[in-house]
C-alpha cells in the first residue's frame, strides 16, 4: 500500500507553547466577557425597568436609587433610628459572637463525640432530639426564657451555627482512615495522641465545610432573629423599611446583608485555603 506522506509543518517548541497559551487566554477572555455581560444586562434591565415605570417605584427601587440611599444612609438615621454603620455593627456583633461561641463549643464537642464512644452514647440522644428543630423555631421559646435582647439573639444565632459544626466535626473525625490510626498505634501512640495528631487533622476538611455552613446559618438566622426581636441591626432596618413602605430601604438592607455575607464567606475561604492549602497541591 503506497501512502502519500503529507507534509506537516513542524512547530518549534516555543511556537507550541505560545499557541497553547493563546488558546487558554482566548478561552478565559470569552468567559470573562460573558460574566461581565451577564451582570451588566441584569443591572441594565433592572434600572430600565424602574426608569420606564414598568416596575412601579412603589415596589421596586432602581440600582441607582439604592446606591444613592447607601451614601445617604451612611449619615442619615431616618427612618429606622440609626445610621447604616450602626445597624451593620449591631448585626455583626451579635452574629459573630454567636458564631464564635458555636465554633468553640461545637467543634470540640463533635470531635469528642466522634472519637470517644462513651461520650457519643451519652450525647447522642440529646443531640438527635434537638437537631431536627429548625433554629428559627427556637426563637419564641428563647424570647420566653431570655426576653428580647442581645442574649436571646445571640443564643439563637449560636444554636443555628452550633448544629452544623458538631455534625461535620463528628462526621469528619469518624472517617479518619483506619490505616493511619494503625500506623500511629504501631508507633506506640496513646489513644489521646492519636486523637490529637491524626483524628483531628483528618477531620479538618469536613470541619471547615461545617464552619462555612455555620457561618451562613448564623448570618441568616440573625436576620430572622432581628426581625422578630430587636431594635437595631440590618434585619430590623429591613422591617422598618416595610413598615414605612420604603422599598428602597428594604432593598438596601438586602443588598448590604448579601454583601456582608459574601465578604465573611470569602474571608473564611481564605483562612481555609491557608490552613488546608496542602490539599490543593
Amino acid at each position: 500500500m503506497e501512502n502519500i506522506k503529507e507534509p506537516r509543518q513542524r512547530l518549534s517548541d516555543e511556537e507550541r507553547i505560545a499557541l497553547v497559551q493563546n488558546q487558554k487566554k482566548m478561552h478565559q477572555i470569552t468567559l470573562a466577557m460573558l460574566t461581565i455581560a451577564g451582570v451588566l444586562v441584569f443591572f441594565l434591565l433592572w434600572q430600565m425597568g424602574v426608569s420606564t415605570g414598568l416596575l412601579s417605584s412603589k415596589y421596586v427601587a432602581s440600582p441607582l436609587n439604592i446606591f444613592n440611599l447607601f451614601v445617604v444612609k451612611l449619615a442619615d438615621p431616618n427612618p429606622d433610628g440609626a445610621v447604616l454603620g450602626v445597624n451593620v455593627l449591631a448585626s455583626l456583633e451579635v452574629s459573630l459572637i454567636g458564631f464564635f461561641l458555636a465554633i468553640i463549643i461545637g467543634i470540640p464537642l463533635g470531635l469528642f463525640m466522634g472519637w470517644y464512644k462513651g461520650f457519643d452514647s451519652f450525647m447522642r440522644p440529646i443531640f438527635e432530639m434537638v437537631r431536627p428543630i429548625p433554629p428559627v423555631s427556637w426563637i419564641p421559646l428563647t424570647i420566653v426564657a431570655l426576653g428580647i435582647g442581645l442574649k436571646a439573639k445571640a443564643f439563637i444565632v449560636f444554636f443555628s451555627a452550633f448544629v452544623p459544626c458538631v455534625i461535620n466535626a463528628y462526621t469528619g473525625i469518624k472517617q479518619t482512615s483506619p490505616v493511619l490510626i494503625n500506623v500511629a498505634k504501631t508507633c506506640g501512640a496513646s489513644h489521646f495522641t492519636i486523637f490529637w495528631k491524626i483524628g483531628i487533622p483528618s477531620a479538618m476538611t469536613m470541619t471547615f465545610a461545617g464552619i462555612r455552613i455555620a457561618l451562613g446559618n448564623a448570618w441568616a438566622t440573625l436576620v430572622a432573629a432581628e426581625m422578630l426581636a430587636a431594635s437595631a441591626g440590618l434585619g430590623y432596618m429591613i422591617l422598618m423599611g416595610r413598615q414605612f413602605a420604603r422599598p428602597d430601604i428594604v432593598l438596601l438592607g438586602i443588598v448590604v446583608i448579601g454583601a456582608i455575607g459574601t465578604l465573611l464567606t470569602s474571608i473564611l475561604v481564605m483562612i481555609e485555603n491557608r490552613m488546608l492549602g496542602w490539599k490543593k497541591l
Partner: protein
Amino acid sequence: MEKIVIQQGIVLSESEKKEIRQNRIYKILPVVSIILLSALWLFASKEVLGFPSPAETWERFTQLLEKPIKALSLWGHIFVSLQRVFLALVLSWIIGISFGILLGWSEKCNALFGPVFTAFRAVPPLALIPLITIWFGTGEGPKVLLVFIGALMPVVVNTQAGMRNVNKLYLDVGTIFNATDRQKLFQIAIPSALDAIFAGVRTSASAAWMVVLAAEMLGAKAGVGFLIIRGMDSGDEALVLLSMICIGIVGAMLAVATQIAEGVLCPWTRKGSN
C-alpha cells in the same frame, strides 16, 4: 499471660471481657442522658418563670386535639404548613435541577448566569420576607414563593457541583462508543450526578421546612409557625413548646422520607457485597 474464663464452652480473654463491660456501659449511657435531660426540663419549669413543665405540655397537647385554634386542629395546622412546603419543594426541584444542569454542563452558561445567581444566593431567604410582603402581601402565594426561593438554592448548587464533577473516564467511554453530546449529557453526566442532586434535594427539604416556619411566624393565619407565635403572644408557653416539639418531629420525618426516596430511586448507592 491471659486469664481465661470458661463459661458454657465460651472462652473469653481478658480484653474481650473488658469490651463486654464497656459495651454494657455504652448501652446505659443514652438512658442516663435522657433521664438527666428530663430532670433538667423539670428543673427549668420550676425555676424559670413561665417555662412549661412536661405535664403542662402534655395537657396542652390533648387540649389542642379537641379544641381547635382558628378553626384548625393541630393536624390541620401541620397539614397547612406541609402543603406549602410540598408545593414549593416540587417547583424548586423542577426548576432548580434544570438550572443546575445548565450551569454545571455548559461553561459558557455558567459564566453568563453564574455570578448573578451567586449574588442572589448570598441573601438569606428570610431577609427577603419584608420585600415579598411589600410586593405580594401576606397570602398563600408569597409564602410558597419564599419557600421556593429558600429551597431552590441548595438544589441548584448541589446539582451544579454534581454535573461539574462527572468523571472524565465515563465521558471517554461515551466518546469511544461515538456518543453524541446530547447522549453524553443525558445518559452519562446526569445519572452520574444523581447522588449530588439528591444531596441537594435533602438539603432543600430541611431548608424549605425552616423557611416556611419563619414565613408563618412573620404573618400567617394558619400553620405550625403561626401556632408558635400565637402561643408567644398569648403567653401560652405550653403551646410554644408543644409546637416546637411538633416541628422537630415533622422535620425529622421529612429528612427520613427524602432519604428513603433516595434509596429507592438510586439503588446502586446501597453498598454491595464487594
